């Protein structure tokens, strides 16, 4: 095992009933690496990153994160402690205030005092530029603000790796950039990131590696400049044509 390799996915297979969602997926991620995964809907890209923190179980193959195998007893919980996740639908807790959303994990799972958790939460809210919303409920916020709260909530757990599952797909167009800006900053600070997105501008700007998936397989991967200039497979070319048309 290479020392700075934080995620190792080997020969991963998964199916929902008869439908094979992932077929022999292999992917290694180094510390600090930013990977953008794209592909048509149903290509298995969300399922793949959901496997990384154990939200989905896989049928065969292996995943290890920071040297911890997900198949080990208690492995899932230890991996989740290292991995943050941001969802398409934000999944904030509607019955809690923004601040309480951020402090729930640190207080209950990490045993931080309320004062410490509050202080840390405010620090991250400032980082995503919405400290003034701390006392509000999620529903009072715009979609872009909610997604930034969700990012801050993940960061409060001090993860080594961040997973983003189509973080801007549920947002109105004018709010996409405020979320992407926060993600770009996070990338610049050296966070290891796996991002499922169709935002090709973001991919060009921050990705070290683009991964294109189709039909449950990784069809192509490489540095964005190279794969955008000269996509090797027809499937990737067709996909790029479709999403770059407008």
């Amino acid at each position, binding site marked *: 095992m290479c020392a700075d390799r934080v995620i190792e996915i080997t020969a991963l297979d998964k199916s929902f009933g008869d439908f094979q969602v992932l077929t022999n997926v292999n992917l290694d991620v180094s510390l600090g690496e930013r990977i953008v995964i794209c592909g048509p809907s149903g290509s298995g890209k969300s399922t793949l990153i959901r496997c990384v923190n154990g939200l989905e179980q896989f049928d065969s193959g292996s995943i290890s994160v920071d040297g911890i195998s997900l198949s080990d007893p208690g492995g899932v919980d230890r991996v*989740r402690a290292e991995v*943050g*996740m941001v969802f398409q639908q934000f999944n*904030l*807790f509607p019955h809690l205030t923004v601040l309480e959303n951020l402090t729930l994990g640190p207080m*209950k799972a990490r045993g931080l005092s309320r004062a410490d958790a509050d202080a840390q939460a405010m620090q991250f809210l400032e980082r995503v530029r919405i400290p003034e919303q701390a006392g509000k*409920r999620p529903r009072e916020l715009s979609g872009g603000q909610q997604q930034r709260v*969700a990012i801050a909530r993940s960061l409060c757990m001090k993860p080594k790796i961040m997973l983003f599952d189509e973080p801007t797909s549920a947002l109105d167009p004018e709010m996409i950039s405020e979320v992407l800006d926060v993600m770009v900053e996070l990338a610049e600070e050296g966070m290891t990131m796996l991002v499922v997105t169709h935002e090709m501008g973001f991919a060009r700007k921050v990705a070290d590696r683009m991964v294109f998936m189709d039909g449950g397989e990784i069809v192509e991967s490489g540095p964005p400049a190279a794969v955008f200039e000269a996509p090797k497979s027809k499937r990737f070319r067709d996909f790029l044509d479709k999403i770059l048309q407008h």
Partner: protein
Amino acid sequence: MTRSIKVWVLLCGVLLVAGCSGSGGTWGWYVIDPSTDQGMNNIRFLIGGFWATILLSLIAAAMSMVLGLVVALPGMSSNRWVRLPSRVYIEFIRAIPLLPMLFWVFYGLPVVMRSLGMPITIDAFWGASITLAISDSAFTAEIYRAGIQSIPKGQTEASRTVGLSYTQTMRYGVLPQAIRRILPPLANQFIYIVKMSAFASVIGMQELTRRANELVVTEYRPLEIYTLLILEYLVLVLIISFFVRWLERKMGADESR
């Protein structure tokens, strides 16, 4: 709701007047006429059952709510072997009529326990409480399940990704949201318990129905006494409805704050 109360009050008034004025008729309200000593004594005796009915209902409902949750949670597991006992319990308990179950618990359970070397005595109060709780818990469990499953899966996933355990996820993430949806059907169940508590009379518990029965036997005025009995339950249920509506408003306000 206020309108239905008015209708009932009017109806009772008419019955009362008709009953008291008709000397040789079919009504004999004298039996519970508060202006006479005998009538007042009878009313006191009947109303004296309120406390037992309320206490029995509250304890049965509390036990049923805990038991229902204990049954419901494994029922939502993705593992079918964890799910199975919950399913069997619900199907089995739901199929047993309350009265036979009450007889079984009151007369049979002490025998079973004694044969197992754990001699216990079950009085009428606890016999009725346990039976009502068990019988109701199958329904409570289904209510919990529906409520919890109505909370989007993303809430559980988000809780797990911020490091919460299963218990913490339920306690802080899912149940506080589910409780608002569960409350109205749970209140229905409570009203059901209050009414079913009347069965406790057959094993001799001194609650509303038992007292009415006893008075009927000595006074031979079933119509008047049972009319009052029905009104007693009506008042009890209306008070509960009122309280639940207040609670719902309060929680609703809390959610939209």
